């Protein structure tokens, strides 16, 4: 692996070397390494780009890494990854996409990830998006995540985009059966002229199903962010979404939360707060000897931690 690939791997997957356990590394639109285990199989799709990741029922304490690296300028990459998590499994999947764009053309990665999480299975899914580049070419990523949770399945998804992505539309859709629970934690920071749009749609279809969406974002400079969510309660269920945003400079944040209740026992709540960093927070840190800039940095790092 070259230095650029290593650095991108470090950023998106916190890896210093190829991971242990199951993994699939995709670099510049092609497979660049794969490992499977007794319980986890990874199969290349034949009809379109992408892979199927199949985890046997009852698999415990295993992880799958599926980093995607783009370092050629002007590359447009589209993949379909399907995940089949067997009943009662308890696993972690770490996905990440890093773009290093030194050229003058647009580099783009669009991933469509579909999760089929079996009965009573537990999945933690961590996704990190990172872009870097010294050229004028834009970095674009449009991740789509589709989640099907069977009875009693639990999925926690953490998604982070802290730097370098010029344009992003992230879409997450979920259908949740009885006793299933989906938690999504999203952290976004945009700078410069970046644009980020989040679309979140979930159908709570079974008794006792639950969804919790927590979004924390910071919009700096002239960047723009849009947050759209629709939680639909079609059964006795609990839905909660929370959108907390800090705007700085000429940043712009729009939040359009929607709740739809189609059952009398659907309990749906949305909270949203958008504003600049509170003056008293800056004052407090400055009384500890921090400059205004250092204080802002600490507050933002804490907020997005």
């Amino acid at each position, binding site marked *: 692996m070259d230095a650029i690939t290593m650095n991108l791997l470090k950023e998106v997957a916190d890896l210093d070397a190829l991971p242990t356990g199951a993994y699939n590394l995709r670099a510049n639109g092609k497979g660049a390494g794969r490992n499977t285990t007794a319980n986890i199989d990874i199969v290349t799709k034949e009809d379109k780009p992408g892979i199927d990741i199949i985890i046997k029922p009852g698999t415990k304490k295993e992880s799958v890494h599926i980093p995607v690296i783009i370092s050629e300028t002007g590359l447009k990459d589209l993949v379909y990854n399907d995940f089949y998590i067997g009943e009662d499994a308890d696993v972690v999947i770490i996905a990440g996409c890093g773009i290093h764009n030194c050229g003058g053309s647009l580099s783009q990665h669009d991933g469509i990830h579909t999760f089929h999480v079996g009965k009573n299975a537990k999945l933690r899914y961590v996704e990190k998006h990172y872009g870097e580049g010294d050229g004028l070419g834009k970095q674009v990523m449009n991740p789509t995540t589709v989640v099907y949770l069977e009875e009693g399945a639990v999925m926690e998804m953490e998604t982070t985009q802290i730097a370098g992505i010029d344009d992003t539309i992230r879409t997450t859709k979920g259908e949740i059966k009885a006793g299933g629970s989906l938690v999504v934690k999203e952290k976004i920071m945009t700078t410069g002229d970046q644009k980020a749009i989040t679309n979140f749609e979930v159908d709570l279809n079974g008794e006792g199903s639950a969804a919790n969406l927590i979004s924390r974002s910071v919009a700096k400079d002239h960047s723009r962010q849009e947050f759209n969510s629709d939680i639909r309660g079609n059964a006795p269920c609990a839905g909660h979404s929370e959108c907390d945003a800090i705007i700085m400079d000429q940043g712009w944040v729009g939040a359009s939360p929607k709740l739809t209740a189609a059952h009398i026992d659907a309990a749906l709540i949305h909270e949203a707060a958008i504003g600049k960093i*509170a003056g008293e927070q800056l*004052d*407090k840190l*400055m*009384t*500890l000897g921090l400059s*205004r800039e250092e204080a802002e940095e*600490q507050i933002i790092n*804490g907020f997005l*931690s």
Partner: protein
Amino acid sequence: MLEIKHLSYKVEDGSEILQDINLTIQERFVAITGPNGGGKSTLAKLIAGLYEPTEGQILFDGNDITHMSITERARLGISYAFQQPVRLKGLKVSDMLRLAAGKEKKNVDYCGYLSEVGLCAKDYINREINASLSGGELKRIEIAMALARSTQLTIFDEPEAGIDLWSFQNLIHVFEKMYEETRGSIMIISHQERILNIADRIIVLKDGHLAQSGSRDEVLPELLGTTKEACDILLGKMGGTK
């Protein structure tokens, strides 16, 4: 040493919150008291740089700090423990103590600072400074931060408020320890007679004026005397915090 000359603070609507305050402070423990709304916190904020005075001058160890930023004053050695501590989502108790102790300090004695204020370090060190902390816990952490800073001048704005079960003796011990370490001045804004009792000097602010200033022996008997006014000053607030 802190010198305050002809200090006034007016707000936009024209009302004068503080008028022509003159003070020189070099004692170890200075207590500032007076009725609610008298201007105590405003004076503290003017000294720490949260507000800028409309008139007058503030000198700290001979430096004119009147127009310095909060940061510059903090770096010169002024600390201010807020009356109402600020909550900071995502920042932990350990982060705040580390920031308070400063970059130069390598091994921050988190446990030491927290146990000084009666908190068990292992229960609090990783807690976020958010709405989950109780008012009294926040207040203690605010004091622990001042301890970690340990500067030439520390202003505590009603440190005892909201702290119920913690023995008063411990709070006095915190002040004494801080004095041992800094040999600086400790200004305590308080309505508590027990705090006024340890002060070398007592200052009374009332309606934005310096109503009284002198040694404990001069001021305290008068404050505790039979005049109705003195009773209001002390008991008015004490009743509220019981």
